């Protein structure tokens, strides 16, 4: 089995979340690569939306520092205003979105705004960007993050991008959120998933070389483990080739 980094594994896992034919709201960095991998492996009919104002089919093959880099515009199916891209998402046309997070809780709520009190934060994070829009309006979404106890917390102190709120059944519907909410949390150690009706994250698979115990102790909440928790399949040779094609040039 070929060697790979934990980032490469996360990208491979993220790419598998994309089903063929889906319209994907692609975020920056890892998801851009994941989208390209999916297009060239199992999802040749997927389309990508980029909030900068683009729709694409095939992914750019060179490294992209941002979704607005020139190679991402060549061959685009639509170059437009962000508000038009958001219109499609508000209409429920986006099947899957990716959101980067600094802090996530057991109900999938994301904080990318403030650690500590907003009026005098201990850490001022960059903010929502399109994150809250994706969290509220896409049919389902996935977040990727480094697995650390300070990042996977019992409850986030500030909800930038709502997941399943307080975890009570129907919380999103009651609060008027149109989309279905978080489907998975992909970390450097494992993959958490959520029940389709919402609620609390459960451990679905653990990455090769890691253990459930390790996950428990690096997670800030009492981890619920699925009965048939499995090992996360390693990246295939195909996936790795596609990943490295895109990551090489510019990864720091």
């Amino acid at each position, binding site marked *: 089995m070929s060697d790979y980094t934990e980032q490469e594994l996360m990208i491979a896992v993220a790419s598998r979340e994309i089903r063929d034919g889906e319209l994907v709201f692609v975020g920056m960095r890892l998801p851009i690569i994941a989208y390209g991998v999916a297009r060239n492996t199992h999802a040749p009919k997927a389309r990508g939306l980029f909030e900068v104002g683009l729709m694409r089919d095939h992914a750019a093959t060179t490294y992209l520092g*941002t979704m607005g880099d020139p190679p991402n515009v060549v061959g685009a199916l639509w170059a437009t205003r962000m508000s038009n891209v958001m219109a499609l998402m508000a209409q429920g046309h986006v099947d899957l979105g990716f959101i980067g997070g600094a802090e996530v809780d057991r109900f999938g709520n994301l904080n990318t705004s403030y650690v500590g009190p907003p009026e005098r934060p201990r850490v001022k994070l960059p903010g929502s960007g399109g994150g*809250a829009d994706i969290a509220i309006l896409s049919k389902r979404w996935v977040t990727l993050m480094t697995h650390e106890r300070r990042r996977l917390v019992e409850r986030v102190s500030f909800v930038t991008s709502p997941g399943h709120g307080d975890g009570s059944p129907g919380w999103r519907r009651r609060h008027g959120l149109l989309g279905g909410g978080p489907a998975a949390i992909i970390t450097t150690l494992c993959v958490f998933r959520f029940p389709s009706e919402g609620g609390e994250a459960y451990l679905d698979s653990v990455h090769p070389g890691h253990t459930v115990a390790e996950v428990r102790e690096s997670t800030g909440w009492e981890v619920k483990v699925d009965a048939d928790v499995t090992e996360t399949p390693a990246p295939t040779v195909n996936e790795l080739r596609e990943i490295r094609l895109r990551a090489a040039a510019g990864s720091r």
Partner: protein
Amino acid sequence: MTMAEAIARFVPDGSTVAIGCALEPLIPFAAGHELIRQRRKDLELVGPISDSLFDEIIGAGCVRRITAAWIGNVSGGLGHCYRRAAEQGIPRSIEVHDHTNFSISMALWAAAWNVPYVPARTLLGSDILRTNPNIKAVDGLVHVNAVRPDVTILHVQRCDEHGRAHAWGPLGISEEAGLAAERVIVSCEELVDEAVTLSDPNRILLPESKVAAVVHEPGGAHPAPVQGFWKRDHALDNAYADESRTPEGYDAWLQRWVHDVPDRKAYMKMVDADSIRITGRRPSEPANFADE
């Protein structure tokens, strides 16, 4: 008009300035650096995601309030100057009006159509409703209050002397930001004859009546990309993310790249332009505007 003249004439202290409206490409870094050189004070910066430009201007102490969706370094993550300002008031404390990309666009469309708010389906269930006084939950929707910039600054590929700007590639919220603004400053890679701009009135981004200044500023978006002209300068953008980690590092960066540089022409001599210059040709298929 030079950038120095445009900023001096049209961006007084205390202005509300929309800049970086295409999110990642076409970011008017040259204009931002001129704001810093002229030591503007008490600005309100309005934008979606503006790569590291907002972080740079905040670090220089020019900013009173941020009305934006995301402030950081697109490649590097956290905005270090933004953090210091928000966490420790260094070099000065700032007020933050959090938005999402969708909501800041709606706020500008509201201003463009001169209505107090536009409703949206976003932000429901988000704590941003608690921190931004200009977004309210109203029976199952949010009302996003109008944001009207005093000036919107855009960088485009080409423009004529009358302010007819041609921009291409993804445009983010450039159009609504321009329409919502009291006036617009356009900087461009090429200053062209009106025969070029009027040959394609559909590509003219804004009515010339909004444009107060046109600045011919090649490389004015560096290190951000400009379709057909410049690739993104990843290395330089990453360098800023590293150097700005400490106040000293930021100050050194500021001295070297802004204060010690008279203008954009000199700045572009400091970068490896050949490594990022786009030399290829992918011309758009012409549209025939003939009438007879």
